[in-house]
């Protein structure tokens, strides 16, 4: 079951870099991250890569594998043919720090711009009562491991640096939806979603949903309902446009 796999890994830093070819041992049951680690241990001790849990739980090891945004620790080698070249590149939407490691501070900045959970004034700790069916909607969004693959893939910012200022991206629009759907959150979030976080930029292409390793239905369950909630207040041309695009596709 052991074979020599062909890997092409992007090496470089903010100044620039290129793809480099490696031949490296691959064993049964391994994932891409295992092979990257073997490269580190045997050929390129300074190859930079982020990871933590190696079990798809922390969202650290995001990269693009053959062009697709994925977690390296959950991408099994048996999904490739033995003679296939596996190309691993850093997430494209964020500035490269080194090799496979990118500067994801954009996401932390956006996270900080979403006003936090606002507890109900009349309930003390221990007095919260919520039904399972009512918390489930927000719980789905709280499965998010902040891998930022959805942010990486969303075309609104993927090749549009200029939109980053006014668009929080699917992860944080979903965070707003999560709070909006929290049974006990006391804040009003709909206007800000549209006006400050750029919900209107999203034209519901669902690319974010497709790459989410937690299989969260970001577009259907968070973004579209959020748009509907906003539209209930104000006519929104993008919802209309989005629906049309969907119908055509």
């Amino acid at each position, binding site marked *: 079951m052991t074979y020599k796999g062909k890997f092409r890994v992007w090496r470089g*830093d903010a100044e620039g870099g290129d793809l480099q070819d490696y031949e490296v041992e691959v*064993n*049964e*049951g*391994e*994932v891409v991250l*295992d092979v990257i680690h073997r490269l*580190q*241990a*045997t050929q390129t*001790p*300074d*190859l*930079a*890569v*982020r*990871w*933590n*849990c*190696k*079990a*798809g*739980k*922390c*969202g*650290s090891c995001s990269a693009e594998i053959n062009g697709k945004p994925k977690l390296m620790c*959950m991408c*099994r080698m048996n999904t490739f043919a033995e003679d296939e070249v596996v190309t691993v590149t850093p997430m494209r939407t964020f500035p490269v*720090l*080194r*090799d496979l*490691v990118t500067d*994801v501070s954009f996401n*932390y900045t956006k*996270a*900080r711009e979403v*006003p*936090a*959970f606002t*507890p109900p004034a009349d309930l003390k*700790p*221990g007095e*919260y*009562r*919520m*039904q*399972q069916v009512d*918390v489930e909607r*927000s*719980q789905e969004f*709280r*499965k*998010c*491991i*902040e891998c930022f693959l959805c942010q990486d893939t969303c075309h609104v910012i993927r090749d549009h640096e200029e939109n980053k200022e006014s668009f929080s991206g699917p992860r944080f629009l979903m965070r707003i939806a999560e*709070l909006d759907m*929290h049974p006990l*959150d006391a804040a009003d979030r709909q206007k800000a979603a549209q006006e400050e976080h750029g919900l209107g930029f999203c034209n519901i292409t669902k690319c974010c949903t497709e790459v989410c390793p937690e299989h969260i239905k970001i577009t259907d369950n968070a973004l579209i309902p959020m748009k509907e909630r906003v539209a209930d207040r104000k006519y929104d041309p993008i919802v209309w446009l989005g629906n049309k695009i969907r119908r055509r596709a």
Partner: protein
Amino acid sequence: MTELERHQYDVVVIGAGGAGLRAAIEAREQGKRTAIVCKSLFGKAHTVMAEGGCAAAMGNANSNDNWQVHYRDTMRGGKFLNNWRMAELHAQEAPDRVWELETYGALFDRTPDGRISQRNFGGHSYPRLAHVGDRTGLELIRTLQQKIVSLQQEDFQATGDYEANLKVYAECTITELLKDGDAISGAFGYWRESGRFILFDAPAVILATGGVGKSFKVTSNSWEYTGDGHALAMRAGATLINMEFIQFHPTGMVWPPSVKGILVTESVRGDGGVLRNSEGKRFMFDYVPDVFRAQYADTEEEADRWYKDADNNRRPPELLPRDEVARAINSEVKAGRGTPHGGVFLDVSTRLPAEEIKRRLPSMHHQFKELADVDITAEPMEVGPTCHYVMGGVEVDPDTASSVVPGLFAAGEVAGGMHGSNRLGGNSLSDLLVFGRRAGMGAAMYLDSLGANRPKISEADVDAAAAEALAPFELEGGENPYTIHQELQQSMNDLVGIIRKAEEMEQALSRLAEFRGRIAKMTVEGHRQFNPGWHLALDLRNMLTVSECVAKAALEREESRGGHTRDDFPGMDAEWRKLLLVCRLNADGSVDVTKKDQIPMRDDLLELFELDELKKYLTEEELPA
């Protein structure tokens, strides 16, 4: 003088897991300017991996539960070696800490009447673990992370600067603590990204660095678990206790090899999963130790009835404390009744409907499907023991989390005492919250007591720390740190693992001495910028110190108890229960182990137990009259 960036804070918290974040929230709420430093990105700490839940006697699922019952379970789980004051505070305060999380925005699973749902776990008498499916750690860390953000938003409102009073330094590793005389004066480290040095000038440092599992080959722990906090504390003159007690979780994945060790949550058993050997036998019935006979079922029928009617039946033996289950699996495999890949079968597929499994154990379902091509709703899993948790850690004052070094505090997995010789599942997440908060309070109180006498940084110490950090670049032609790391892991796994013998541990100690020589001559390639080889080289020092503590203390303790099993001393010995083994660092960097008497349990706490039970653990003289 070393070129570096300098920051002044009141409190520096090292670690952004549950303990560190809770400590930082407290310190900031007490009005102290606080920095959080962590090796990975904010929100990625190990706590994120916790699955099963957070133990707190809220009594939502069974109203008979209360702190006294939780206290008793915790002491039993730790085989009475626990620091009883910590166990008491933990049991009393855990419910408030969990409820508080709801005010930060946490969304736990609910009971039918809308309260926080609680699940069964090994060693807990009642359903006690607050949980969110099997991703409780994620909920905990995200909630605390978001609370930190909300405090930063408050500071922004007040000052125009999010980071005025609370700032996270992510992907930054602390390599040394600095002192002025006896007292802490700050912490020194480097940015992982640039390799540049950073200095925190701060009179109070809270260690919340988690555990040590990366010294073992088969482990559920991530790369962060190199025992940095344990080693930093020792180098600063603090003491560690209980280092011989390492928890091997009974159920780690065993196949494929690249995922060996990854955790299979105990909730699988809590929710009905059973263990079988290759002959199809539910073998745990053969392994119920005498001390637990009264609480555990001896027939499959009774065990199965318990899931529906816990008040009138005894618990299934699959839910014995972890040390018992891990040893049982080890024995079955050794006796030739293991699975093809050297584990045993854990089966939930014949116990619950597929839909129910997917709802209750979504990440396990996902994990096995993606990593092992196994559908747990249709077939059993193969599982075996994996190094999971270190009970040992920094010796602290229970109420304030202060170590013996003024200004140095510790909370979470890096602190010792709370769990005695064996931790119950779910008791870590609650420990993080209870003692994280107490460490924040302890640090604030300490700062208030300092007044104008702020300890100062010594520039010579800073230069020495910088030189030490750069040493691996100085040599050429030495060994690669990855090789040494692999050998260290193999040695600890084979020689100081789940079952221990004197000769093997002596062998381990001589290998560790040999590693010490090799580590001094290691070489790293490349630059300081995000260089994992260099990072590992620095972490190896810590792993070595911690491994030496584990091996030396384990050799010293001539009995078997909880996470320490001696082949040559198989029994539990009441005389040893009274003793703690304390590790200190000698001037030459080697580890010194000394015995210390435990403080006897307070009378009102002793009275919570039946005399017959106390007789199993305590010596004649210790028993109440």
